[in-house]
């Protein structure tokens, strides 16, 4: 069996070290070893986006990243989105717009939306839909998700940024 490696990363702002085999994906390590089960597995082949996390600020499918590739990386998962003061603007908007039913796709959508709004705070509806193309939902029909992202964009601009 391949030698295990010790990998050091920063996850949601905290330094974390973990031991893993080369064949373990980031998704497997997050869920099975670090107990960060907010990130979901939907397809295991990079189509559904349920496993979306931010790697050095960029949205990626964690099912297609090997954990060993994350040495020195900054990771952001759904668990780091809310602060001690409360929900993030995006999470609040998802609730208010009823943008989730079963909720399995939701962490992935929120991570993608977070990346989108950081990059393009004034995204148009078309840009939002295109950006979120890598996140699939079987329950909602997407409309309310798009509205939630639009609301989050407006809310974010209306209030002073917290970070």
């Amino acid at each position, binding site marked *: 069996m391949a030698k295990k490696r010790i990998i050091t990363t920063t996850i949601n702002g905290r330094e974390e070290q973990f031991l893993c085999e080369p*064949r373990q994906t980031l998704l497997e390590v997050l869920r099975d070893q670090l107990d960060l089960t907010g990130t979901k597995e939907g397809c295991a082949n990079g189509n559904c986006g349920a496993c979306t996390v931010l790697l050095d600020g960029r*949205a990626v499918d964690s099912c297609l990243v090997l954990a060993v590739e994350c040495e020195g990386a900054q990771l952001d998962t759904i668990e780091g989105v809310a602060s001690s003061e409360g929900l993030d603007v995006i999470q609040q908007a998802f609730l208010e717009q009823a943008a989730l039913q079963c909720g399995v796709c939701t962490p992935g959508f929120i991570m993608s939306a977070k990346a989108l709004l950081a990059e393009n705070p004034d995204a148009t509806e078309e840009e939002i839909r295109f950006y979120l*193309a890598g996140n699939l939902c079987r329950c909602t029909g997407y409309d309310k998700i798009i509205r939630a992202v639009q609301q989050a964009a407006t809310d974010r601009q209306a209030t002073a940024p917290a970070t």
Partner: protein
Amino acid sequence: MRDFEYDAPATLAEAVAVFQEHNGRARPLAGGTDLIDHVRTGRLEPDVIVDVKQIPELNVLECSSDGLRLGAAVPCYKIYEHEQIQASYSAIADSCHIIGGIQIQNRATVGGNVCNASPAADASPSLIALEATCVIAGPQGTRELPVEEFFSGPGRNVLQPGELLVELKLPAPSQQSGSHYRRFIPRNEMDIAVVGVGAAVTLDEAGQLFERARVGLGAVAPTPLLVEEVDGLLQGQPVNEESIERAASAARSLAKPIDDMRGTVEFRKHVAGVLTRRVLWEAVARARGDSAR
């Protein structure tokens, strides 16, 4: 997933040595968006996965008056965010922004897209249209070949055991040139191309005559194709519907698609013609500076 060792060489020489040592049992890892899936499904069975992202030569991204150098490990997002590439090699920017979704584009690479050698790869038609050359390193040294000669069949490329694609080199575009890539898919995004067309044109100073034109076709043959006839058909011809229709007809004739769940032979040949027309017109608009881009 299958058990494999992982290595991350810091130099090209080290990487070539590892590949040579494992003689076909080692696979390069750049973005991983194809490789990891293939290993998980058992389509590929490497003993060693060699992460090539630390190798400086594979991370080159240079746009100058000598042309464009695209390292094989440069991710799609860096390519489509690059202003000069958007302006002067816009077909490649089009391709990179359409491969999968954002999550894929943040990891996937044009080098990997080419090496994975899907007939429907989105980068290939653009690279063909823009006359890209593959730079390959191996135990015997470096060799180069036109990108359209890199593919040997569906999912197969001409790399020999021990060899690695290092970069794609593209010539500097002339004045009055423009390029575009578009594909037909049943949905709006995320699909695999049913037909993909990349075109690059150079016009005369007045923007009324074709000086050069190249068309690359994807998803309609076992490999991506260069529609060789097009340059001869369009050289010196006026930019109008008639000339462009002749190019579209050449594309239709060359296309040798199969019937599969994404489309029939008849449908794909028809769409190859339609798309060639549209993509050529958009390349013309960009050459003239008329396009929104």
